[in-house]
Every structure is written in structure tokens, then in C-alpha cells.
């Protein structure tokens, strides 16, 4: 089954947990929870705004994890934290800081995966160990420019899935699925048996379906966060995510012949 991982900026609104529940009800397989950082280097305008909005509300890692802990009984799908290195490495182990404590705090709040876009595989040793010790899957990212030897290492060391960054750009909506998405997903699948989820710029159910014909699923971020920033309700977002779910389920039902045809014609609608 094709996987659907919508992204949600933690604390973006006071009722942000309701969006999470709406994503779950709409058929999300997991939700990526953004822990907002002041300087999100790999995020475009929409997720920057979402992060700023949350930070202006006084949201912290601690408050987000507390909200998740409080909502534990309502959450049935895996949660994956997505944040930047500074929040992960903050502080010394002697003072309750460092990646070891960070990963334990995530695990205590029911989070089972972690994505840190500014920690590439070369810088991941300590975090790798800390995550493993806390039972957290450290998901590594691969990019269209990643050479073969690095890709093999990323495939070997990633846990949970491999995140295929579909495009040489920041997060943000795009009119078309990037041409680099499918070739990257194929290259990753050659080096690992882990699922490959394609993210960055996937903005419509049609694009999600096109991506899922090569990958094992998609991550949807900016397209959803823009709706939330514009004031859309959890119910609105439930419908939005459900449309992505339907599109992915249709890919599952496609006959192999239809799939081959779509790949040949580069179907992106």
C-alpha cells in the first residue's frame, strides 16, 4: 500500500492536535510533526511562516511533546519528528541536553521517528546512536545530486524509510512534480529494501499519485500548511488529506500495465 505521510507544524494553532487527528482519520499512515526552528534552512516561505507562527505563539519542543503526550489515547499512527540540528544537539548531556536526551524525550512522548535535514549522513554518528538507544528511527534524506556511494551509505544507515528529496530546492508548493523525483526514487530503491517516500513540492493528489508510481509513498507539507495558515479548519484538512489518500489508493489498484503506461507517458496531469 502506498504510504501517505502528511506534515504538520507542531503548535501552528492552539488546536493543532485536532489537525493531527484529522490527518489520521483521513487515512494518513504516519504524521510528520515539525518542531519549529528559528532558522529553517531547507524550508521555503510557507513552512517558514508556519514555524514563525508557532514560535510567536510561544511554542517549544517541550510544549509540543506535552501536547502529544496529552493526546496519546487519540493517536494510533506513528509520529515522526522533523526539526533542525540545533534543537537536537542543544545542551550538554551532563545538564539533561544533547541528542541522547532529545531522543528519549521524543520516545517518551510517543514519537518513533526523526528527520533532521541539516544532519547529513557524515554528521550523523552520534545522533544515530542516540536515536537507536531510544528506539527512534533516524530517517536519512537523499537528494537528486547524491552520488552513488553516498546513496548506498544512506540506504544502509537510514531507518524506517528513506526520504527522497524530490527536487533541488527548499520545501514549497510546485506546479509540477519535479522531473528529478522518479529517477531519484528508482536509484534509492536499487540500494535499499526500505520504503522510499518522496517529499518536497508535492502539492496535489495527482502529483502524489505520479510520485507514488515510482516511490512507496509521499510526504505532503507546504500544500497542507498553506491551508492551515489561510485559516482552513481541521475538517477542511481532513478532506484535503483524504483526497491524497484516494489518489494513492488508486495507484495501488492500477494494473501493472496501466502503471507501465503511466511511467512511459510521464503522466503528471
Amino acid at each position, binding site marked *: 500500500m502506498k504510504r501517505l505521510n502528511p506534515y504538520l507544524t507542531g503548535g501552528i494553532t492552539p488546536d493543532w492536535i485536532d489537525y493531527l487527528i484529522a490527518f489520521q482519520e483521513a487515512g494518513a499512515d504516519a504524521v510528520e510533526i515539525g518542531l519549529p*526552528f*528559528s*532558522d*529553517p*534552512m*531547507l524550508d*521555503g516561505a510557507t513552512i*517558514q511562516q508556519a514555524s*514563525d507562527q508557532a*514560535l510567536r505563539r510561544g511554542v*517549544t*519542543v*517541550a510544549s509540543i511533546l506535552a501536547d502529544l503526550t496529552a493526546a496519546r489515547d487519540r493517536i494510533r499512527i506513528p509520529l515522526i519528528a522533523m526539526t*533542525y*540540528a*540545533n*534543537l537536537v*544537539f*542543544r*545542551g550538554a548531556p551532563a545538564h539533561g541536553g544533547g541528542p541522547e536526551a532529545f531522543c528519549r524525550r521524543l520516545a517518551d512522548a510517543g514519537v518513533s521517528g526523526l528527520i533532521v*535535514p*541539516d*544532519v*547529513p*549522513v*557524515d*554528521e550523523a554518528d552520534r545522533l544515530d546512536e542516540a536515536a537507536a538507544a531510544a528506539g527512534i528511527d533516524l530517517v*536519512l*534524506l*537523499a*537528494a*537528486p*545530486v*547524491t*552520488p552513488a556511494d*553516498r546513496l548506498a551509505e*544512506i540506504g544502509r544507515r537510514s531507518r524506517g524509510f528513506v526520504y527522497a*528529496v524530490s527536487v*533541488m*530546492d*527548499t520545501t514549497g508548493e510546485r506546479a509540477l512534480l519535479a522531473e528529478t523525483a522518479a529517477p531519484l526514487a528508482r536509484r534509492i530503491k536499487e540500494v535499499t529494501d526500505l520504503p522510499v517516500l518522496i517529499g518536497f513540492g508535492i502539492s496535489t493528489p495527482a502529483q502524489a499519485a505520479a510520485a507514488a508510481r515510482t516511490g512507496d509513498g509521499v510526504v505532503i507539507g507546504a500544500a497542507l500548511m498553506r491551508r492551515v495558515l489561510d485559516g482552513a479548519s481541521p475538517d477542511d484538512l481532513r478532506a484535503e488529506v483524504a483526497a491524497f489518500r484516494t489518489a494513492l489508493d488508486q495507484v495501488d489498484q492500477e494494473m501493472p500495465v496501466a502503471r507501465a503506461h503511466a511511467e512511459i507517458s510521464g503522466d503528471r496531469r
Partner: protein
Amino acid sequence: MNATAPGAVIGSVMGEPSATGRFGQFGGRYVPESLVPACAALEAAFRDAWADPAFHERLARLRSEFAGRPTALTPALNLSAQLGVTLLLKREDLAHTGSHKINNVLGQALLAQRMGKTHLIAETGAGQHGVATATAAALFGMRATVYMGERDIARQQLNVFRMELLGAEVIPVTSGSRTLKDATNEAMRAWVAAVDEAHFCLGSVGGPHPYPWLVRELQRVIGEEARAQVPATPDVVVACVGGGSNAAGTFAGFVDTPARLIGVEAAGGAAMTDGRPGVVHGYRSLVLQDDDGQVLEAESIAAGLDYPGVGPEHAHLGTTGRAEYRTVTDGEVLDAVRRLARSEGIICALESAHAVAWVLRAAGTPDLPTGSTVLLTLSGRGDKDMATLAGEVR
């Protein structure tokens, strides 16, 4: 001007960083996977160029024929007499474009050309690095895109006009503090999207490996020239610290002497003094941040020092005690600009005035005893700051 000999001892003081780009526990390459190959390619190109005499020859010619190097060493006779110390000014304000930033940019533009790049992307605070980048782009026939915080655009108008006259595109950055921190984020984002044809021409000794090393080596010319110009080893070597490139270049020339090395930060942007270990803009160093790890906005009258981080090698030099760091306030800086102007006939940049302000405060105290000889790098000239100064200096 000798370059570091290829094969210089790794990990020696102000030598080559470790294989992972570390100076002690600081540095590294904390960038998205999309940028890792570009950083690796830059490192390889730099190693290759730095071992190539032809590259050094081209750089040396550009420095002398275009940038006006070597810059003068000026004894500040009047101030020396007033303060009871011997104050020697390394005049980076006399370098073409008006600051030390040209040293770095000429080297990086040559590297970019060697790598077949056609586009320079830069961040700038005071605009001096942006002007230097625009200048090199014009000279090398490249395209230049400069990211600059909206707030800095307003206070450094002259440099915006200069960049545009030179043919660069200046893109206002409206996020966050609308200063250098956010301009750097935006430049790195732009680099991700243009990594094939663009070189990120980073302006100071921060950023992912190899930038802190590369930029320090390109700024080393300040310290090496000064070392050859001073009559004897100074007691104290002082420079202002934003990201820390003019200080790093100056210190590199004196790190193996008994001279004390002093970096002067803006009180409102003092990562060495008030920062805690953190990762931002691709490197681990000392960073102004809150308890939750959110980066704090710096606040300084000098746009070039209005930055919450500092180059990783400074964090290392400070931690090991080889260099010391001090802070001065905006008020002291304004006084220093006026005092240097009236005593020596030199109007320096607000950034550079931080080093002057420390000398004014410390002279005659145990921190800088009477009779000391001080080498001070005057990193830039003050033309860009006239609007700010007109409003502040009575």
C-alpha cells in the same frame, strides 16, 4: 605572500581543520544532503587550487593590480601619544571596494571560475561583502545575486547603490530579524536551487566546511602582510569580530608569535561572550540562542557585526585560550569613529571601530598596559555609514 604549504600539519593552530572540517569541537558540515556534494566539490577544488602555483600567481596579481595590496600599515601617531601605547593600523579600509572583504571574494571568484561556475550568490550585512562580490562578478563576467536583510538595506543604502551599479541583483530579505542571519538563510536556500551553475560566495569564516578554512586562508594575507610590515612583534593584535574573517586573517599571521590575540565583538552580537554551543548556517560554534535552542536576534549599530554566530575557529581559539574576546557598546563605537577621524584623519567603518573602541577603553589598564604595541586591523572605511553617523555623531 606564502600560502599554507600543502600538507601543513592538520590540527596545528590555525592550520588545516580535521578531515570533517573541525577546529577542536567546532565546525563541521551541517547542511542538507542537497548541498553536501557542492561542499565536497568546493573542498576538492580549493585543495587543488591551493596546491597550484598558477592559482597563487593569479591571485597575487589580482591583489596587487586590482585590489591595491599590500595595504599600508599606518602608525596612528596622535592617538598613540594620547593613549600611551604604540598603535599601528593595518589599513584594510584602503583595499579596493573599501574593506578586507575583497581579499576573500577575489579568491573565491577565481575558484568559482576554475569550477566552471557562472553565478555568484552571496549574503551581506554591511553590504561590503556584497559590493566585493558584485565587483568580482563584474570583473570575471559572472552574474551576482546578493541577499540582504531589509533592515540592512535601509541603513547601508550607499552599498546597495554600489552593488546595483556594478550589475548585481540585490534581493531584500524580509524574514526574521531582516539582517545578516536571515540573509544567510536565504542565500543558502538559493544555493540549493542553483547549485549546478552557482557558487555560494560566503563572506566570513562561518558556514559548512570548507568555508571557515577557505575564507581564513584567503584572509591570511592581512596577517602575513602586517607581520612583514611591523618593526617588531606587537604585544597585542586586535580586530573586530562579526563572523570573524578579518580577525581570523589577521590572527593567522601572528598565532605562532607571543602576541596576545584579541577579537572585539558588538555587545549586542557577542557570540564568543554570550553564545552557547549550537549549530546554525551549516556549522557548529558558539551561537546566541535561548534555552530551547531558538537562535536569538543580534542587535548592533554595525550591520556587519549584527549576527548571532561566530566562525568555528574563533570558538576553538577562545575555548583553548589562544585568543581572547571582548565586547564594546554602540556608544563606545560611535565615540571611536569620531576620535579616530579627528585624531588620525581616518573615517573607519562602524565594524572596524569596535577594535578601536576597545583600544580606547583598555589603554593604560592591565588589559593593555601603557607602553604596549598594538596592531589593529582597520577592516573597512566608513563611507557606507554616513547616514547612520549623521544621525548619531554630534
